[in-house]
């Protein structure tokens, strides 16, 4: 036994970051490695629903009870990531009364507060609902930003002494005497805050215990360690609408099915989803019919969706797991429960536990269980404090409203910035320097971008998930380059250019599934702006050395009124 055990957590999703925070708060040494950005896997590819448990109240009451419990905890500890929108289970004429009653009964059994609304009451609450809906059940569903939540967990873990390494892929699991003693990781571009184009290094990270929190990728880590983990990744498609058609979570009140939920998410609405088993969590088809079906089906609940603009679509893979021998064929029937696989008990391999299954809303509870389990291995009795201590940004949230206009920002910009930053708003937004808006769609200012760069280095996708910059209707067409510009002068031109290309490509990826109507016009305008106006498709500076010092700094005072006269 060691006094202060070192734990290596693999996976920078909500579960991994939650585990890192929990263990670090209990005084253990923690290193977290993630092969991409934080939220790179499933966490960053979900619909952002904070479950009330209502969705599982009929089929899986154990999960439903956990959901409502954690729903209450997260409202408290992660208030700056949560928007309590409420949710409705909406019954259409073709949906059965019997199921409606079962849902109602199930919610009551699970202690989920419910109210039955008449069609008219439901439409008063949510005017966009179809004229022919029958009635609805109101539940305390909410919207949650998985990016900010995950980042806040990582930041908190760091504050408690943890080391967080992104872009650090596990290339091998180190075994000694039949036990796991650490991992070998390859840093994509150097250890620590990411800098582009610096040569990568390989590092052996030794640990007293390893936690495999890689979700749908758990089988791949298992393979490196020589154990079998039968995750059954199941893909789900999600469509992002340009504006919020609804301000309430809208669920279809019928037994499990595709395309039955609309979640208001920040400035957008997300339509979900499908459920189809795939072989590989990274290689699977993303098909147009999935998007079409989603819009078609959900228009029955909210008709305006049919003619509304979608800005992108994305697919995520659920890390579903069932114990060997269960033999479920339909992925929608596989339990949403989570499993803690102690490889010592299970496979005779000491020093490592995997956590699989589960869902985002209960990430903290999962982290608590696994942290308990790790502590048990070392005879540590420290209590879990993650349900009581607010995350960075969620402290003293009530004072926030008073501060909204204090940063010299126009009111909707100040409001959105404060909604995102929570109790960190003052620290981030107070500045003596000019603080222009960098991303107009999402109202993100330079100060917030700079704060994110301080956290994550030159990776602009990491800046994006922290700020939402480039996630609005132009999908970065008008702000990617401004974001990249914020990296200068600290970073040189080639680094800035690579960072820009990487962000721009990532933004394009999701838009490919939304290329009709307005988003097609948008994509064309973006293309012309970047290709023609900025000459980014054949910029000579890409291949030749440009003497940037030869350019002057512009007019000494670029104020419009000071410009000299001249035709």
């Amino acid at each position, binding site marked *: 036994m060691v006094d202060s055990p070192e734990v290596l957590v693999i996976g920078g999703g909500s579960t991994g970051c939650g585990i890192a925070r929990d263990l670090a708060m209990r005084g253990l040494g923690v290193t977290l490695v993630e092969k991409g950005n934080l939220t790179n896997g499933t966490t960053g590819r979900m619909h952002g629903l904070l479950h009330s448990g209502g969705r599982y109240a009929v089929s899986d009451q154990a999960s439903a009870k956990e959901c409502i419990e954690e729903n209450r905890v997260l409202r408290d500890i992660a208030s700056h990531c949560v*928007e309590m929108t409420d949710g409705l289970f909406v019954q259409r004429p073709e949906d059965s009364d019997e199921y409606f009653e079962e849902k109602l009964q199930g919610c009551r059994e699970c202690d989920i507060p419910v109210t039955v609304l008449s069609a*008219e009451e439901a*439409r*008063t609450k949510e*005017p*966009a*609902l179809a*004229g022919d809906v029958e009635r609805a059940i109101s539940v305390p569903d909410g919207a949650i930003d998985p990016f900010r939540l995950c980042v806040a967990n990582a930041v908190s873990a760091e504050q408690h002494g943890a080391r967080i390494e992104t872009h650090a892929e596990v290339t091998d699991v180190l075994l000694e005497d039949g036990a796991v003693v650490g991992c070998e990781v390859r840093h994509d571009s150097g250890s620590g805050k990411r800098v582009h184009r610096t040569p990568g290094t390989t590092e052996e990270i030794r640990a007293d215990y390893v936690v495999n929190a890689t979700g749908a990728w758990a089988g791949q880590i298992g393979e490196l360690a020589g154990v079998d983990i039968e995750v059954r990744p199941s893909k789900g498609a999600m469509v992002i609408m*340009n*504006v*919020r*058609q609804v*301000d309430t979570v809208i669920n279809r009140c019928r037994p499990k099915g595709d395309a039955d939920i609309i979640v*208001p998410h920040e*400035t957008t609405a997300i339509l979900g989803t499908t459920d189809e088993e795939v072989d590989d969590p990274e290689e699977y088809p993303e098909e147009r019919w999935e998007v079409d079906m989603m819009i078609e089906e959900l228009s029955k609940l909210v008709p*305006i969706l049919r003619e*509304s*603009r979608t800005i992108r679509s994305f697919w995520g893979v659920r890390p579903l797991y069932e114990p060997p021998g269960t033999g479920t064929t339909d992925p929608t029937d596989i339990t949403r429960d989570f499993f803690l696989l102690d490889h010592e008990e299970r496979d005779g391999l000491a020093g490592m536990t995997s956590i699989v299954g589960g869902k985002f809303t209960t990430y903290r509870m999962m982290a608590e269980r696994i942290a308990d389990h790790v502590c048990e291995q070392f005879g540590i009795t420290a209590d879990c404090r993650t349900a009581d201590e607010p995350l960075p940004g969620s402290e003293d949230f009530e004072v926030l409203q008073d501060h909204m206009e204090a940063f010299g920002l*126009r*009111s*909707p*910009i100040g*409001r*959105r910035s404060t909604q995102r930053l929570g109790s960190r708003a003052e620290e981030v937004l107070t500045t003596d320097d000019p603080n222009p808006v960098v991303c*107009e*769609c*999402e*109202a993100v200012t330079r100060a917030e971008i700079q704060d994110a760069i301080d956290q994550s280095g030159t990776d602009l996708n990491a800046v994006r998930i922290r700020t939402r910059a480039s996630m*609005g*209707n*132009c999908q970065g*067409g*008008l702000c990617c380059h401004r974001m990249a510009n914020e990296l200068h002068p600290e970073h040189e031109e080639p680094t800035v250019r690579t960072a820009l290309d990487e962000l721009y490509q990532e933004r394009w990826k999701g838009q490919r599934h939304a290329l009709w109507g*307005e988003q097609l*016009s*948008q994509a064309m*305008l973006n293309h012309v702006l970047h290709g023609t106006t900025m000459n980014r498709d054949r910029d000579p500076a890409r291949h030749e050395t440009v003497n940037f010092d030869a350019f002057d700094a512009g007019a000494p005072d670029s104020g*419009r009124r000071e410009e000299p006269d001249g035709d």
Partner: protein
Amino acid sequence: MTKDSETDHDHTDHTTDRTDRVATAEATVPPSSERTTDLRPGADNCYKCTACDTSCPVAEVDDEFPGPKFQGPEQWRLKRSEDTDIDESITSCSNCMRCDSACPSGVPLSQMHNTARGEYVEGMSKLSREYVRNRILANYGRLARIGSRVPRLTNFVMSNRVTKWFNERLLGIASEREFPAFATQTFGEWYEERGGPQIESEDRRIAYFHGDYSNFNTPEVAKALVRVFEAFGYEVVVPEQRCSGTPMFANGMLEDARRAAEFNVDTLSALVEEGYDVVCSCTSCSMALRQEYPELFDFEGTEQVAAHTYEALEYLRLHEDLDGALSESEVDGEHPELAYHAPCHARNQGLHRQALELFRELDGVAIEDVGDSCSGISGTYGWKSEKYDYSMEIAEEMFEHMEDADGTTGLTECPTCAMQMEHGTGYEIDHPLEVIEKAVV
């Protein structure tokens, strides 16, 4: 006293209407009576090309003004249902509506601005100097009704330096501006005196929406309309009417606008039923009836009135051979070049070329286009002390082009553009209808 009882009465009407609307709309449209209009879906049309910002005359001169894209689609898109705050800068939008024409993608910019401004003003202190000033400016018509009873006295008082000093200091109304003089006989009085319509016709009949300004200040324009239409064989009726609402929209006084609009729609839709088309001599009035009413209100008959409203020259060009009539006419006497300015609201209705096209063929008249800039006054905008300098800066280009024209007479359809043109150049400003009157009557 009078005002209070009127408000109560209007309030009752308003409630009744709302209930009706919910009841009739239930089948297809979700009732949204509890919330303000949700214009977020309008942001779907915006792909941020920024054409609106580059066309905005205020953004060009006022560095503090963030421009129509921010005021419209961006601000709306950032809204959650419980968010009620609107940025103060919305009060700097002059409601020229040039952004509407500039947008290649159909974003309902002015509707977004008008609605947001209404919400902002709702939250304003009703005792603030700005609110009181804006309410007075927006309700010019009500004051005109009183002032024009004793026109000579009012004109004397309003042009008095003491009054101007008082207005500037106490209310923030630019003392540089000359209050327009009230006519000694209003158009309404004249029309009454002559015994109403001189022609009765089953198939050529219009209801004239003259607006307040040509009633109280420039009755010669209104008379010209009556005479020109009668010359073409039209029955011209003049229904009782209130302000079109234009200055109220521009100042976010949506409740005042609602009351006025409801009265107008009620009166005019009854006439439309009887086969009258509505004709305006002011391009902002026709704009309000055609576009702003349906965008902001839904009284019974609103759409119908909108579909039957025309600007005077536009109507005659559509239904009569005005071009032919003018090309066969001539205007006697000396008529140096007219410096024509197309009002922004005429531009929005596609009417900015009509005076140029018509008068080019008219013997005895020469016309010079003074360019496509905004006149800068935008109704009440240029009357506000803090906006006066911007207003004049916007107008600079127009003034220059006017000076370049040969004559010293200007021409425009809009009464406040006319004020600005006169203010900046000292020219006399005519309405195209007055020129047509000379030619065809």
